[in-house]
């Protein structure tokens, strides 16, 4: 019966199995070099011909009225944050559901605490009107 060959990592200066400073330095140099080339080329090859009209904000071909820097309500942003939050919760729940037989009661209790905390958060956001799409009170 042939002997199973053991895995023998190649030894050498750049072996990933022998961490050292040199590969890191070389890698870093390559990254910096590549970045420099890309940045230089994209700066050099682009001919910038700025004119006042070209520098102006585009608003359907019309001169914009007023300044673009002011405070305005962004209900969509709140929605997006909540979505992210509960999206993460779903990710945990799916993992939990898959591991349900092993986790049993202790797992259930831990998960319940987690969901309760999130539930309180949801109730709080709801009560504060975070789920209402109101432009009027966003400021």
């Amino acid at each position, binding site marked *: 019966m042939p002997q199973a060959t053991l895995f023998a990592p190649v030894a050498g200066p750049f072996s990933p199995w022998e961490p050292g400073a040199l590969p890191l330095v070389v890698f870093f140099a390559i990254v910096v070099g590549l970045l420099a080339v890309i940045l230089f080329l994209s700066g*050099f*090859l682009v*001919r910038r*011909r700025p*004119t006042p*009209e*070209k520098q*102006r904000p*585009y*608003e*359907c*071909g*019309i*001169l*914009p*009225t*007023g300044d673009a820097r*002011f*405070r*305005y*309500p*962004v*209900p*969509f942003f709140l929605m997006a944050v909540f979505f992210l939050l509960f999206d993460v919760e779903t990710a945990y729940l799916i993992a939990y559901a898959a591991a349900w037989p092993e986790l049993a009661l202790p797992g259930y209790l831990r998960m319940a605490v987690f969901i309760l905390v999130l539930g309180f958060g949801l109730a709080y956001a709801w009560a504060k009107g975070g789920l209402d799409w109101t*432009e*009027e009170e*966003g400021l």
Partner: protein
Amino acid sequence: MSGTLDTLFSPTDAVINWARSNSLWPFFFGLSCCFVEEATAWGPRYDIARFGSEVFRGSPRQADVLIVSGTMFKKIAPVALRLYEQMSDPKWVVSMGSCSNSGGMYDVYSVVQGTDQILPVDVYIPGCPPRPEAVFDGLLLLQKKIRAGEKPTRPVLHLPGGCEGGRADHLLDGVSKSRDTRGPGYAGIPIRGTAATEPRFWGSRTEVMWTPPAARISLRPDQQAVAADLAAAFGDAVAPAPDAADMPTYAVDPERIADVLAHLKHAAPTRFERLEDLTAIDETARRNRPDHDATAVYTLTSLSTPGMVRLTCPLPDRDAALPTATGVWPSAGWYEREAAEMFGIRFTGHPDPRRLLTHRDWPGHPLRKDYEGRATGMAPFTREDCARLEPVDAREILGPRADAGDYLLNFGPHHYATHGIFRYVLAMRGERIRALGMDIGYHHRGVEKIGERQTWHQFIPYTDRVDYLSGIANNLSYVTAVETLAGIAVPPRAAYARVMLSELFRLSNHLMFFGTFLQDLGMMSPIFYALREREMVLDIIETITGGRLHPSWLRIGGMAADLPEGWKDMVDAFVRIFPVRLREYHAGVTKNPIVRARCRGVGAISAAEAVDWGITGPNLRATGVAWDRRKTMPYGAYGDFDFDVPTRTAGDCYARYLVRMDEMEQSLRIVEQAANRMPGGRHLSEDARYSLPQKADSLKDIESLIHHFVNVTRGPRLPPGQAYAATEAPRGEQGYHVVSDGGASAYRMRIRTPGFANIQAMPLLAEGLRVADFVAVLASYDYILPDIDR
């Protein structure tokens, strides 16, 4: 040394040019009709992706080819110039279509006679409109130009010399271009008018031709009751006109006009619920000069007892004032603003008396008879004029309501979702529209002015372009008005063919609606299906007429030629296939939950408001009003056909969509009936006084040849009088009010378009919505720019 470098760079030049020419990214910039063909080039069957240019960019920053597709209006020119300058370098300009090349058929005060006067044009595509294949031809020509003429390596490497991008100079009238309509070389000879232009040719035989008097109507009992009621209520202030050709007409004392209108709306035995049209006539150049200088004309429609009435207000001079009708009908707002800017008359008490179609600083009143109608008669439009006619500030358009939101946003004139050059001004708070202002006239082609100088026949091609997706349906409104005035009988074969062609155009239009509506809602695929079917319709149209968008196929008293061989097979094939395709559409879209969520309850308007604002067409029927002129006041041969009038009651985006989908089914029914029952016989009226003789006849007998010659050259002379005829065009009721003073061309050509009235009510639908919903409302509303601005 330089020669060596050039040799060295020639391979890199070739590589860069190859890359650039095969990935030209056109700017999503459409001005008018031509853009429909440009967009068709992007769709199935043509597929511009074969040439690497399918990426139409919405922002000038990402585009490198500006295809100026359509008419360069003086009001949009400053915007076009700015968008061009905001494009990234290197960039090229393609001028698409006759209008953009030279002004084309629109030698009129509001149109720049050639894009090249303000933009550096590299390639010209001829045609009106050019076919999609012609777009490719232009694109290939530009690619060839880039490959042959550009040496981009030096500019790319920051070396002196070399060249890239299109030409940089624009043309100057009298120096590098000529606006002479006769072509170059005639500069020494003064331009004179054609037979139909002012100043008149004295002694023209048009003046001595006799015509029978205009048609007369006799009043129906309900119309007699209205006459008696008006006489009782207003006495001498309302005088019935004796010679009405189309509808009861009353001359009203200008002081009492608002009272009379209110009476007819609320108290008369027949209630006239809709202000159909409001315009004016400059009387100072009539052959038989009346004792007043101007006339204001009000046309009303009764929906409860189908019928119409016209009120005329004689005004002592063209600057006279009369009371506003905005208190009676809110829709009078725009109509009065238009009449005021076009004629100079004033409406006292008007809430917003600014100019509507022309720029704030526009001099003069274009529809006055002494106003120069031709652009070639005016000073050439230059880049300096662009600075002078810079679109007004958003704040000015919204007026005091500009402060309703936190900031002002210009939505258009150049925007994907505005379906043409239309400028909305939104006063926003967050995502919510608090106030909506509209600035129109960017697409004002002065077609009413042109109508006064073209002969009755010559004007037909202009009608095609009033609603450039509805082709022959436009012809129909115009020729019906002329036929009403002169009392011309249309032979049955022509009447049926007109119905069939109009309905085919309704299908073509609604298919375009279906595709663009869903694309604006974010669905990419439906437009490809819709364009596929639309090409089938256009193939039929092309077989019959030889044209696609603008066949100009109808003639006074009939149509240009008989139906060709093989038309029936094509129509039959389409009638067989289309219901299957329509089911596909419904399966894929109508029940789609996202479409429903985006459309249901969005942008609703009530039936009462819709009638009050003069909304017509599918938009009106979506509110539950079963009013369709083809049914309620049949014209042409429509009385012979069996079809239903689809309605919905919700008045929202979804209802508007469903009504149009159902209308396609009904149109198909009409097409099928018309094709199966197509009568034989003549395709042009025998009344050779007005109609062209059939071409075959004019090749055989001298009488027909003479009539053909006379009617084609100086044109028929119509009896003095006026007539209004409206048809149910795909977008709503389109009416032509033709006024004749007994000449070879109209004395006044008024076009009542559905879009103008429909869009005026937009703030009712849109205020309070989010921007994304606003896009859905615009798409579901199905308007088109020349139909609004004319």
